[in-house]
């Protein structure tokens, strides 16, 4: 869709040139870049303060706690925030914090309508119209179940980090950090810096696997250096790094008292007889992140399967999705870290400008070339990272029959196996229909990956007749009051 005529359309108070969903690194970079180039932007974010996952900070008033101490990228954020404030003041950006978009709808004239809930109780509704859409909805943490993971004291790694960043509370005093992926190192460091003791960091993969792609590593010396720096800092803080191990049991009556850590083989199957107990009063676990795709799927954007086992929005070099008028940036297009998110946000905004105006000025074009190069390099690294930390197929062997997989609906691994073995379920949807796994509060955001893997093991990846093997569909990105929906009804 060329938009050469678009510029001549008067600025319209009711219809922004670009709507950006998500004010994390990607969305912030996109919004300020687009506004720098004269576009009128509306920026919606479900959080109260901008920053997303990475630059999460205490809500205003806790200024004394110096959140900068928890982020090495703080100056970048400070600069983005300042630009956001300037554009907000000049009216170039309409910033709508505490607006959770529950769906996006394409109007007859091709504009997008973003339906959001807002207000302290989430009971107010708001609809925003825009000519183009940029999705920077980020990711949520991926979890794998294991025996004992429902015991109080077991928290998600990202959750622990978020608690620290925004409320500055610790989940315990002696905290084991476990799972897989580079986030764990960042989390362990933050915990030790905040005064906790972290006796061990348990990583199910081996870092050695990175060596399989020497060119990718060579092209990303910064990532290498960061890894080394983290490693050294962790050792300095007394954290033992144990690789090819996983937490296979949690002990304690009404709270975590210890965990059993077992060796796992290359496929993540626990090796019998290798279990060793580590005393602790909390366990922070995470298995990387998974893109948040509700809105992209609602808009009809194509998705792809990534090396880390998640799905992400399909994007071209210009960060266009498969739907005209819709762009995406940051983790929605695949997990890749903050640097990539910043790079993609800016690149996506330039791509929007280019498409609207049929080109960009020379300086912007040069900038885009440089960003494109960084993006290629960083994406290569994130693909490698995803492949290294993708849960091995044997992880489900650490489940017992009574391990809960879906916590909301209390569905055990045993029931899922019965649905597959006796009732012929072979995909997520059928398992869900037969067991209610994924039907509760979190709508499968927590258990979705695990359920898919358990079902796939039986159905060899066969998709349901109607929807072959795509990402989970959640037409409502968040719960919405019935009256809020009812208010949208046109008089019959």
């Amino acid at each position, binding site marked *: 869709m060329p938009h050469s005529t678009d510029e001549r359309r008067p600025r319209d108070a009711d219809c922004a040139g670009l709507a950006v969903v998500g004010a994390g690194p990607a969305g912030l970079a996109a919004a300020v870049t687009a506004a720098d180039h004269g576009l009128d932007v509306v920026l919606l974010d479900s959080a109260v303060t901008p920053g997303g996952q990475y630059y999460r900070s205490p809500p205003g008033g806790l200024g004394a706690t110096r959140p900068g101490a928890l982020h090495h990228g703080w100056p970048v954020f400070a600069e983005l925030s300042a630009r956001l404030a300037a554009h907000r003041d000049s009216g170039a950006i309409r910033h709508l914090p505490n607006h959770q978009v529950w769906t996006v709808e394409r109007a007859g004239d091709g504009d997008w309508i973003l339906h959001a809930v807002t207000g302290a109780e989430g009971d107010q509704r708001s609809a925003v119209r825009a000519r183009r859409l940029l999705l920077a909805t980020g990711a949520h943490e991926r979890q794998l179940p294991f025996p004992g993971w429902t015991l109080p004291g077991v928290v998600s790694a990202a959750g622990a980090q978020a608690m620290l960043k925004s409320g500055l509370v610790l989940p315990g005093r002696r905290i084991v950090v476990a799972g897989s992926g580079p986030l764990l190192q960042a989390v362990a460091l933050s915990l030790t810096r905040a005064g906790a003791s972290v006796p061990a960091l348990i990583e199910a993969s081996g870092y050695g696997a990175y060596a399989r792609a020497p060119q990718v590593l060579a092209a990303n010396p910064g990532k290498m250096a960061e890894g080394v720096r983290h490693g050294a800092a962790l050792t300095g803080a007394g954290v033992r790094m144990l690789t090819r191990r996983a937490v296979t049991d949690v002990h304690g009556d009404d709270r975590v008292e210890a965990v059993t850590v077992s060796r796992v083989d290359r496929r993540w199957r626990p090796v019998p007889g290798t279990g060793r107990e580590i005393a602790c009063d909390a366990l922070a676990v995470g298995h990387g992140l998974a893109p948040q795709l509700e809105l992209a799927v609602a808009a009809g954007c194509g998705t792809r399967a990534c090396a880390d086992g998640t799905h992400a929005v399909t994007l071209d070099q210009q960060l266009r999705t498969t739907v005209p008028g819709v762009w995406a940036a940051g983790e929605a297009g695949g997990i890749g870290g903050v640097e990539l998110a910043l790079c993609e946000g800016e690149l996506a905004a330039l791509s929007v400008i280019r498409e609207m105006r049929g080109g960009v000025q020379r300086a912007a074009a040069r900038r885009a070339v440089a960003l494109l190069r960084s993006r290629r390099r960083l994406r290569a690294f994130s693909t490698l990272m995803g492949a290294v930390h993708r849960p091995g197929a044997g992880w489900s062997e650490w489940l017992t029959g009574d391990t809960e997989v879906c916590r909301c609906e209390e569905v055990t691994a045993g029931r899922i196996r019965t649905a597959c073995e006796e009732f012929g379920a072979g995909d997520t*949807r059928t398992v869900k229909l037969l067991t209610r796994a994924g039907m509760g509060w979190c709508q499968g955001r927590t258990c979705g990956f695990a359920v898919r893997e358990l079902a796939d093991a039986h159905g060899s990846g066969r998709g349901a007749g109607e929807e072959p093997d795509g990402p989970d569909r959640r037409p409502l990105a968040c719960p919405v009051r019935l009256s809020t929906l009812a208010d949208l009804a046109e008089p019959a």
Partner: protein
Amino acid sequence: MRQPLDVVIVGAGVVGAACAYYASRSGLSVAVVDRGSVAGGTTGAGEGNLLVSDKLPGPELELALLSASLWRELSEELSSDIEYEIKGGLVVAASEESLTTLSTTAATQRGAGVEAYHVTSDRLRDAEPHLAPHLAGGCHYPQDAQVQPALAAAELLREAGRSGARLCPGEEVVGILRHRDGAVRGVRTARSELRAPVVVNAAGTWGGDLAAMAGVDLPVLPRRGFVLVTEPLPRLIRHKVYAAEYVSDVSSGSAALQTSPVVEGTPSGPVLIGASRERVGFDRTLSVPAIARLAAQAAALFPVLADVRVMRAYHGFRPYLPDHLPAIGPDPRVPGLFHACGHEGAGIGLAPATGLLIADAIAGRQPVLDPGPFAPDRFDTTCHVT
């Protein structure tokens, strides 16, 4: 070697499952093929209402009444819980005018064997305490029941398996094998061939494609429906409750959006609000107007739901034939081909009677009711060839 097959059933939805159940029980050797999983098609989107209340006297109502008694039997015969419950339906009328229509309908339904009791305006809230005030009146249909569709389909197939039926999930049928004389001799899937003298088309909304593989026309079209699911609630709603206008929506021939929700509680707590009807092909995008109207009508019936949060919305595509009746029985145009599809918004309810009719027809037994109105070739305007 396995026993040679008598029947290949294409489709592991509730209809295919019921066909497999009754066919294997009558001693036939059966295989069920589906490109996905059990209940992976429209069955997984169905709400599981087994309604007689929404049907006017005629062949569909006869099928529904037969099915109602078969579901009752099945709920006792099947070994695991399919969440069968005869909770009854309550149809309410907002105006005196629609109450008159409702009462007339109920009178004709009673003549056809449906139990229907008038409920006066002042007694409505005895039946449903949270109903909106000021409704004109209603009608109680105690025979309306429900099952959990996916569980029911899976359990029927498991029982069929115990009588020897073979389930082949994850195999797409890509062709129908024919003898030189045109008679069916099995199906070809992406992976293999399954030989049998009888093929049952239980492919639901995709039944037209399957018929085309055998060279015949069967105009099954998708009719989209959305359902809203709320957060879990204590039991607020006892019956299946819907507005009297629903019946005319169901039988409407219009492609435009129709909504008049059936509101009901479920054993696990969420309230289901469904379902819209519109003919928009296989469009899977969320329709804000459709769900907004469902929400508005549900909140009008039950003001107590206004503040409740809707957790999710989902859709499905009802398999729809132009006269709103399913195709059930042998296809005179292709010997050995049987159809059991096109049940639109009532396939869960009508599944057992369909399965029984198909099993009897394959075995050459006298049908329990006149299958004439369901003749699969009734839309064929070309001259019939055999």
